[in-house]
């Protein structure tokens, strides 16, 4: 034996145990060293806390040396203390004070180090109390210095890690390193107190050309209880701080230039996410980590210089050994998907690529790739040319700021104007437009996104069944159901929203019913509440865009209730009813403050019915069943859906049959309501037919999924016979459906027309001529904004300016003076006036447009027209002051009001003398006045002369104010409905509208609601994982 008790014939190994006030287990640690079968093993214990453990050490290992590490801070500096102790061993076995090595561990490690010529080797580390569980098997490390475990959480030791492999880093709990290498590298980075020092050491070893190897044959147990021992949980802080330090120190200049900005961006993202999820501790950790490193740039620089001395391998070769992506990001994504956060890279490999190796996963991936390719290819012209403003597809306006301004302004110009209850969706669309720089692009993406959201919902619909085939079948079927193309072709936003929301609503209702197989998972209040909240979110999100879409929940629930009763399973019925009721608060929260406004202003069914009056339509029951309700007929091929829909009824057993019956009833209820609407048997109007059919569409898709399930599980119980023949027949029908749907891809725009009325109509620019309104009359489906019923199948709406935008769909709190429009139209229609133009002029109407078709000819043929009734056209033409514009497209009749006066104009005082009632305008027409406030607003500013009055043709409501040089101007009623302001002197005037503070508050709450719910969901997912 030589100095320090090291044998001379074998490579000498010095075990360096860094101890810091160890507990009772320390004896076991020391004993494990003393029992090693490797003879040339010496031991030195660094007493980091200077707690006088020499006696405890000498009791177990008599010849062990104890080094006072009182001057050191942290593990790294303590371990480095041996560098100054003149050690001459060949290898250093660096150990924590809470590890216990297997008796052969050192000999196996030394043998492998010699055999592989490795610089650092490390054992398989298992848990202290449960040695059957692998704790560490080396680290993979990404280019940001973040390590990832190579084993999963609680991974059972089944000898799967007993081999030898190259790894990028090894944990410092136990590692064997050549002394010469340790010295050359300067030991651990003394600035890294705990955590991350091992990654840094190994990274530098890699740079120096040393192999780092994991040796599964050597085993050590590890307590890993640093937090409980120190009482300080700074794990995240130190990990983040030291990973960043490792990155800053160990990357080459070029690679650092690349990765440092990326790391900074990721840190910002992490901070934002942490803020939004109320994890402020995490925010602090990330910021402190960066501040700590920035404040030590001089040390970083020194260490980089030192590294340059030891570097033997090109940086690119080292980087190639590291994980390509971000361990932290991957960890986050896997937490969101519910996967285990540990064993990250191998699990990720299994999830992304390895998953393809399993048949069902491969099917799901292929299904999604095909479906998304189908949607994108079918939308190629929409993506390249945009979506024309057809039907509900109102333009979004030219700039995002206008959208945001309108959302915040709280005033709707629609009809006669009224305070509006703008939904938060406007704010989000505006922000998205601001980010993307194009509102048109946002609009196009919104249309396509609704389809994709619906498809995603359909895929998730049957996830509880655990059958990927069923999910994929549902996905394909929902894609092939012609509701989405019909909605796009008809310009029906309501249809698309229904398509997007119905699968999610149905899924949550099925979960709420707790009927098999939807009763998985823990049952309890939190679980039930989550379902109600999810259902409310689905309804509220739909209502954010089309308020009537929230009612789909009722329609779907009615179908499920009927199905449950028919299936003889009434126990789920009360749960469904409770779910519908308890979903209301969440939906109301999302739709805040509109829902409050609607309740406060009284129920307005016409608003939900969008100008429909309950009169009969032209769509037959057969067309309803085929979803042939749009501008294009999908043809007979849709009947083929009947085959897969019948399969679960004929083959299904148990819950598959029960759920099939429920889905059938959902479809039937939706079809029945649609039929009732089309036959005009209801005393009130119903929303868009596309929206009403959305439950049927998802039910059809769900039944196709159930068909796959029945074939998968139930067919085998049947004797050979006609049931087996169903399979090829169903497959053939599905193939035919798929082939038949290819036709819808032909034009790349889902048969949506290529042009809109706006391109066929010529309006004078309001900025030049003065602000005006346009009165639109036509079928409710043709109007770009919610209409008011005028006659069976005919509605009217009025908009301001030369274009109709999404802002015109803002929901007014009250109708304002929309009644005046109805009055004037009725006067004209009944032939009680020949001067309708004068009356309309009192409302600022300059143009009257009668829409006979959805879009201009030749894009929509005459067969698809729904002309305005001839007597109404004749009545319009009877007006002496409405001039028919000759030569306009045959799809419209456009009249110019020759008696028009601007909505906002300057007049001499007393301009409306003698006009006691609005109808007096018929005999006392207004002079034109001088237009003012013609641009975008409110607010507007202008300069006025002395002795003038300003007519403002809006519904008078508190909040409007006109000031001259900052002083409010008195006002009076004009034309018996509008306002005239009477400035006393010339000056700079400003007309503005300010909503009350509580309305702004409500809007903020409404806008924040989606964020709050998303963050709550995120937090729940993160907490669960």
């Amino acid at each position: 034996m030589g100095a320090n008790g090291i044998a001379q014939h074998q490579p000498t190994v010095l075990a360096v145990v860094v101890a810091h006030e160890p507990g009772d287990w320390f004896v076991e640690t020391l004993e494990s060293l003393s029992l090693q079968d490797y003879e040339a093993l010496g031991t030195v214990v660094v007493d980091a806390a200077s707690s006088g453990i020499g006696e405890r050490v000498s009791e177990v290992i008599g010849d062990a040396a104890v080094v006072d590490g009182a001057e050191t801070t942290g593990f790294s500096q303590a371990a480095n203390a041996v560098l100054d102790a003149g050690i001459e061993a060949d290898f250093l076995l660096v150990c924590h004070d809470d590890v216990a090595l297997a008796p052969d561990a050192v000999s196996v490690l030394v043998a492998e180090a010699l055999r592989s010529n490795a610089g650092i080797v490390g054992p398989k580390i298992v848990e202290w109390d449960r040695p059957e569980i692998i704790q560490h098997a080396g680290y993979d490390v990404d280019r940001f210095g973040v390590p990832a475990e190579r084993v999963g959480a609680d991974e059972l030791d089944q000898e799967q890690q007993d081999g030898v492999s190259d790894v990028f880093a090894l944990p410092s709990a136990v590692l064997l390193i050549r002394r010469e290498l340790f010295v050359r590298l300067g030991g651990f980075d003394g600035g890294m107190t705990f955590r991350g020092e091992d990654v840094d050491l190994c990274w530098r070893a890699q740079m120096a050309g040393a192999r780092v190897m994991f040796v599964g044959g050597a085993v050590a147990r590890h307590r890993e209880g640093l937090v409980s021992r120190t009482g300080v949980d700074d794990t995240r802080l130190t990990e983040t701080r030291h990973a960043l330090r490792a990155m800053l120190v160990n990357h080459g200049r070029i690679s650092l230039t690349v990765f440092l900005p990326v790391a900074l961006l990721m840190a910002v993202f992490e901070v934002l996410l942490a803020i939004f999820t109320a994890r402020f501790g995490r925010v602090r950790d990330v910021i402190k980590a960066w501040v700590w490193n920035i404040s030590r740039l001089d040390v970083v620089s020194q260490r980089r210089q030192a590294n340059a001395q030891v570097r033997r391998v090109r940086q690119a070769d080292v980087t190639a050994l590291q994980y390509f992506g971000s361990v932290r990001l991957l960890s986050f994504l896997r937490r969101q998907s519910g996967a285990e956060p540990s064993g990250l890279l191998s699990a990720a490999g299994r999830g992304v690529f390895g998953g393809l190796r399993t048949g069902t996963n491969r099917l799901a991936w292929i299904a999604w790739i095909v479906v998304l390719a189908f949607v994108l290819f079918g939308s190629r012209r929409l993506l390249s040319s945009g979506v024309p403003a057809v039907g509900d597809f109102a333009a979004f306006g030219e700039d995002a700021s206008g959208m945001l301004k309108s959302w915040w302004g709280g005033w709707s110009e629609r009809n006669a104007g009224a305070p509006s209850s703008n939904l938060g969706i406007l704010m989000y669309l505006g922000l998205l437009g601001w980010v993307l720089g194009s509102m048109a692009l946002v609009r196009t993406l919104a249309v396509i996104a609704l389809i994709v959201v619906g498809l995603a919902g359909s895929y998730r619909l049957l996830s509880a069944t655990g059958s990927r085939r069923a999910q994929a079948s549902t996905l394909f079927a929902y894609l092939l159901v012609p509701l989405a193309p019909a909605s796009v072709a008809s310009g029906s936003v309501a249809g698309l929203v229904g398509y997007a929301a119905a699968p999610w609503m149905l899924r949550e209702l099925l979960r709420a019913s707790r009927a098999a197989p939807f009763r998985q998972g823990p049952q309890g209040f939190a679980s039930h509440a989550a379902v109600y909240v999810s259902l409310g979110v689905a309804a509220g999100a739909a209502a954010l865009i089309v308020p009537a879409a929230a009612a789909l929940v009722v329609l779907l629930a009615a179908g499920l209730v009927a199905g449950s009763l028919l299936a003889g399973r009434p126990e789920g019925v009360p749960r469904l009813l409770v779910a519908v009721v308890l979903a209301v608060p969440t939906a109301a929260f999302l739709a805040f403050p509109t829902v409050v406004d609607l309740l406060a202003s009284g129920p307005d069914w016409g608003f939900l019915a969008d100008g429909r009056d309950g009169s009969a339509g032209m769509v037959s029951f057969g067309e309803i069943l085929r979803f042939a309700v749009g501008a294009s007929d999908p043809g007979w091929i849709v009947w083929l859906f009947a085959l897969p829909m019948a399969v679960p009824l004929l083959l299904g057993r148990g819950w598959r049959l029960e759920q099939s019956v429920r889905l059938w009833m959902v479809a039937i209820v939706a079809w029945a309501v649609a039929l009732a609407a089309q036959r005009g048997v209801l005393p009130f109007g119903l929303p868009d037919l596309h929206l009403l059919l959305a439950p049927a569409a998802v039910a059809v898709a769900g039944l196709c999924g159930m068909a796959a399930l029945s074939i998968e599980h139930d067919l085998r119980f049947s004797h050979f016979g006609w049931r087996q023949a169903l399979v090829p027949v169903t497959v053939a029908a599905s193939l035919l459906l798929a082939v038949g749907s290819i036709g819808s891809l032909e034009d790349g725009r889902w048969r949506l027309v290529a042009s809109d009325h706006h391109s066929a109509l010529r309006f004078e620019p309001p900025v030049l001529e003065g602000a005006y309104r346009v009165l639109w009359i036509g079928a409710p489906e043709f109007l770009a904004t919610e209409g008011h019923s005028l006659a069976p199948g005919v509605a009217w709406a009025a908009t301001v300016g030369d274009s109709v935008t999404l802002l015109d769909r803002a929901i007014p709190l009250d109708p304002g003076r929309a009644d005046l429009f109805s009055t004037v139209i009725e006067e004209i229609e009944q032939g009680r006036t020949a001067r309708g133009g004068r009356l309309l002029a009192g409302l600022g109407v300059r143009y009257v447009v009668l829409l006979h078709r959805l879009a201009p000819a030749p894009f929509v043929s005459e067969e698809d027209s729904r002309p305005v009734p001839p007597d109404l056209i004749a009545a319009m033409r009877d007006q002496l002051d409405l001039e028919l514009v000759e030569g306009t497209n045959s799809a419209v009749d456009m009249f110019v009001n020759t008696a028009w006066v601007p909505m906002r104009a300057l007049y001499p005082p007393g301009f409306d003398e003698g006009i006691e009632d609005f109808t007096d305008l018929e005999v006392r027409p207004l002079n034109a006045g001088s237009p003012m406030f013609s641009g975008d607003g409110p607010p507007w500013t202008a300069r006025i002369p002395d002795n003038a009055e300003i007519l403002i043709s809006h519904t008078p409501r508190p909040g409007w104010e006109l000031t001259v040089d900052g002083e409010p101007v008195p006002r009076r009623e004009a034309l018996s409905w509008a306002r005239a302001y009477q400035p006393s002197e010339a000056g700079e005037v400003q007309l503005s509208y300010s909503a009350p503070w509580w309305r702004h508050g409500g809007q903020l709450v409404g806008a924040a609601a989606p964020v709050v719910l998303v963050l709550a969901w995120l937090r729940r997912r993160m907490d669960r994982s």
Partner: protein
Amino acid sequence: MRSMRVLAIIAIGGLLLAGVLVDIGDRAVPHRADQYESALVAPAGVVNTWFCPGGSGVAGIAELTVQMMNRSDERRTVTVSVLPGGSAPQDLSTLEMSIEPRGRVLLQPSEAVPDAEWVGVMVETTGADVVVEQILTAAEGVGRSPCLTRTAGSWIVSNGATRLAVEKERFVVMLLNPFPDVAVVDIELVADVGRDSIDGLVVPAQRVAAVDITSEVTVASTVAAFIDVVSGRVAASWIQVADGLIAGRGIRTAPAVPGAADLWHLPVAAVGADRRDVVAVSNPSATDTAEVDVEIIPEDPQIDVGPIEITVRPGRTALIDLSRQARLDGIGHFSLAVRSLTPVPVAASITSVTAAFADADSPADTGGTAAAVAGSTATIGADGAARRWLVPAEVRDQDGATGPDSETGSLVIVNPSPAGIAQADVTVAGNLVSSVEIGPLRSRRLPLSGLGSGHFVVEVDSSAPVVVGREVVGLTSRSASLGVAVDQPVPIAGLR
């Protein structure tokens, strides 16, 4: 499980079948009931617009005068727009006029547009208290008719004549376009001498156009004009001037008929030695033949006369000369109902030519006619009935002034209902002057001289929809027309 499966399949199949069955029946298609638009002159709004398609300027064949009578006790202000016509470029002229309570204003619009060859007028009034008539003064006499209260896209003029050389007949169709955009009109002329057409006639915005049919179809004893407004809408009337042995001497004017109907009433008709009434029935259909009955409605309920049955070929006009109908001899005053028996609507009007008595002492009543003054009248039929009517009336006295003792015209009230009795109150200047009961499909004639004197407005209030006509005898001419319906008219064909 098996029973549940069977039950579910049956229920689902049954529900789908029920849907199919429910949809088999006729559905209440969103068909807007066609709004009835009567051919009657019927001011219906708070502000009413009267269209007088007009006549000529000062130097023309029939100078236009507009008469506005206020039947209310309040002063009324009217806005008169004078629309010029002809080749001279002239703009519309607008003036405001005030009419005294129960007053009457005469306006010569040619003074506002002195260079215009033809003149039309548009009068805007507040309320239905003002009645507007156009009076055309020609060398051959004076013709008058109420102005129109509507425009239309098609018009029918059933009976004109163009024997210029022999009978000095001139037939002019007046088209008034009050709108701010031009109107384009096609006119098809169907005459006893053949067919002709005028295509693409442009009526400029806020102008009148006079179409002299005499120059288009010469030497026709009967011409019908079918007017189709290709673009825009117009108001139409016609002027017939004659001075011949056969046609008599006089001028008659009447609105054109805006559309065809299944049933028409002609309240004023008579036969007599010096009176020749001709009913014109036009069939505007291009393909279908109309079988028509002209039903006689005698004033005397004891008299029953069978209908005159005629066939009207597509696009043709049938003329029935009542003076040649022996069945009508001695039945006194009567009204007519023109009923299409086939589902082919027709248009009906009546013209009357009266020769003046050489001897003023000759019996005035030869079968019920008022023939002291020669002249020619034209009246379009009524396809609708109303409960309230206004009738401008005029009663002249012997020496040229108006007065109650002269041979005057009459007011005719027809109850077109086949079942109900109508109780009609006749009021003049707020005073009830007569109250009559009229049985189903019967008429009552009231002499205007018994109702008032001078120029006045007769108001008729009836318990059931009626048709009111009048025949006015002036100093040198006579005229007949329907009254002005001031209650919402209802279609006669639908009366029970």
